[in-house]
């Protein structure tokens, strides 16, 4: 019985790992690209990402885009702490990654997302194309379960 329970637990864990429930905190032009990725033309549902969640307690994938200033950083941190663990973070676009083209240094209100929370996947681009965001999700899956993906195994078998 305990064997079955542990198997079931592994199954549930694996499903949970591959099912990304995203919470999108986005500002500026990256929002458009993220919307585009989630809808019919690029459809991130194919890669196991569910619909965009509004409750942080339900989500386990945080997608941050746009500039992060001091005021917004508190909001992001608050959301991040409430999210389901383990939380994965994807930072999208130059603003979020490096505050570009804003100046950093003395007097700057801008904060890099990586200094705020631990970012797993970086998506460079201003704004990045939907492909880049999809490739981020593929990278994330590679990171979570190393080794060849089911797709690659299938392709190899077909060849």
């Amino acid at each position, binding site marked *: 019985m305990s064997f079955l329970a542990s198997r079931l637990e592994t199954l549930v864990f694996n499903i949970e790992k591959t099912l990304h429930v995203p919470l999108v905190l986005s500002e500026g032009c990256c929002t458009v690209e993220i919307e585009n990725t989630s809808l*019919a033309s690029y459809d991130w549902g194919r890669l196991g990402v569910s619909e965009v969640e509004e409750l942080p307690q339900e989500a386990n994938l945080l997608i941050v885009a746009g500039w992060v200033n001091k005021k917004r950083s508190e909001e992001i941190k608050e959301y991040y702490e409430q999210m389901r663990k383990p939380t994965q973070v994807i930072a999208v676009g130059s603003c979020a990654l490096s505050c570009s083209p804003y100046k950093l240094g003395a007097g700057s209100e801008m904060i890099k997302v990586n200094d705020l929370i631990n970012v797993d*996947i970086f998506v460079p681009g201003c704004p990045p194309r939907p492909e880049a965001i999809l490739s981020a999700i593929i990278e994330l899956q590679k990171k979570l379960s190393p080794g060849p993906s089911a797709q690659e195994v299938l392709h190899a078998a077909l060849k």
Partner: protein
Amino acid sequence: MSVVKRPSPKAKWYIPGILTGLKITIKHMLFNLASRKDMITVQYPEEKFQYSDRFKGNHILTVKKDGSLRCTACMLCATHCPAECISITAAEHDDPEVEKYPISYEIDILRCVFCGYCEEACPVDAIRMGPEHQTAAPAGDNFIYDITKLAYRAENKGGVLSKVDDQERHKRGL
């Protein structure tokens, strides 16, 4: 004055609305089953969207015929870069005709905003915005692209030649 249109009595019954929605969904599903060509979804990792030639993707440093960089390290790209992501270190070349060349050329891809000003500013067609869109990478990857990555990466197949031929220009005395 804004006029609020009252919902028609038909809409009060939800079932027709639901059916209208389902009709559209099922129609698309059947169409897509019938012909996959017309499907608007791009199956990303397998098929890729064809962008225009003017797409501003990752930078390429072009090379001369002998495979060395075209860049003369004039730093006009670094001057015009609004994101200040380009850093170049120049050095003296042995050949007095070349005179100046970059010993390091680095682009911080996280800071770059892909505006294409570097391409516009370059007087010798040494830097271009390539066709490859950006790809994501996990934390800890190298996001500062150096000469090997910019000029001689696998996609460039040993370096991209510029259309401007220097030797031809020198022959004509330009």
